């Protein structure tokens, strides 16, 4: 089921980091970071909820286009068919999800410490925020990936895909913002919400593993 996963993952990383989309990613990060940097300069103290929103805005919006696009582009350029002849749809799907999670985490590792330090948040909470970001990135990547896969099969354009995806991932994003703001403010994690996020991730993962081969036949 996972034959060729490592190879596909390496290919995903190469195509993600070389394509034009990486400029979009950099631009998104630069824009949000410059906003975060300008606030202390203007002597505006940001609320933890705003900081959490900024963190997840960077992580989500900087990669969404790349991640969804990778499914659509693969389908449109016909390489998905070539991959399917050599490996399983599950391996293709998981490699894309893994590559996107890594991309999100790299962005998080750069941006989160910078924002936490710059916006005057207690450094003690940094490891917890990073832990939340790992769980959140995995959950967002899985849900984006599953929807991206379905939309690419339905031949929905790259531009329309994020708009269709947004209502699906909005509850996850809101939950992640609430968890992160609670960590930033009180240093505590809302376990109930983390359980919801982890359960959702597992449900999407199991659904992907079970239904992808069936959907491949049907779509």
């Amino acid at each position: 089921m996972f034959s060729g996963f490592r190879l596909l993952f390496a290919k995903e990383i190469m195509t993600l980091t070389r394509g034009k989309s990486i400029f979009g990613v950099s631009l998104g990060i630069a824009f949000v970071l410059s906003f975060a940097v300008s606030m202390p300069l203007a002597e505006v103290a940001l609320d933890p909820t705003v900081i959490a929103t900024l963190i997840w805005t960077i992580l989500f919006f900087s990669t969404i286009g790349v991640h969804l696009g990778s499914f659509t582009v693969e389908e449109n350029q016909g390489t998905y068919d070539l991959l399917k002849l050599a490996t399983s749809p599950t391996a293709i799907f998981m490699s894309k999800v893994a590559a996107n999670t890594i991309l999100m985490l790299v962005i998080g590792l750069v941006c989160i410490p910078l924002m936490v330090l710059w916006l005057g948040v207690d450094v003690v909470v940094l490891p917890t925020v990073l832990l939340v970001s790992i769980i959140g990135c995995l959950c967002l990547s899985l849900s984006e990936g599953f929807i991206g896969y379905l939309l690419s099969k339905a031949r929905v354009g790259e531009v329309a895909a994020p708009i269709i995806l947004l209502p699906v991932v909005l509850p996850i994003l809101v939950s992640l913002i609430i968890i992160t703001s609670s960590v930033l403010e009180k240093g505590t994690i809302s376990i109930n919400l983390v359980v919801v996020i982890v359960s959702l991730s597992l449900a999407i993962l199991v659904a992907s593993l079970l239904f992808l081969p069936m959907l491949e036949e049907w779509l």
Partner: protein
Amino acid sequence: MRFDRNIVFGDVSCDFTQRLSIICGANGSGKTTLMKILSGLVNPTSGKITYTPGIANIRIGFDSPYIHLYPDLTVREIMDFFSRLKRIEKYDLREWELHKIRHKKYKNLSSGFKQRVKLAQAFLGNPDLLLLDEPEQHLDEGGKNLLKEKLSQREKMIIVSTNNPESEQKIVLWL
């Protein structure tokens, strides 16, 4: 085979037993769709395809004009990727005269060389069944000669679709 309410083709019955089979038809006659069905990528609306041995035991090489390889990868990277994915230990870029452009990105190649890379990818590892959809597209004389040489050297099954058959080719199926 049907897309929505449009019937692309029907009543097709054919045995591919020869080493080289040619499928011929005009634009839009369903050649690519038939090639995708033969490769197992698409299920027919009705009917059945039987492979001997079963499709799980057949390694398929496939090329079609609708396929465009990874634009930001170099020729060497693309061939390395597909050879490792198909678990092929060795390949030679010289076979398709690609060694001089191995460091060039796919997007920067001419149409003819893009077609050569696609063909080289399809021929990788001498697959049991080779499905080539309009393989001569964009090839210059040198490329066409290379293709003819490769096709004549092969001992395993080849199915080629074209809308421009040469007079000496025996057409197995006319769509």
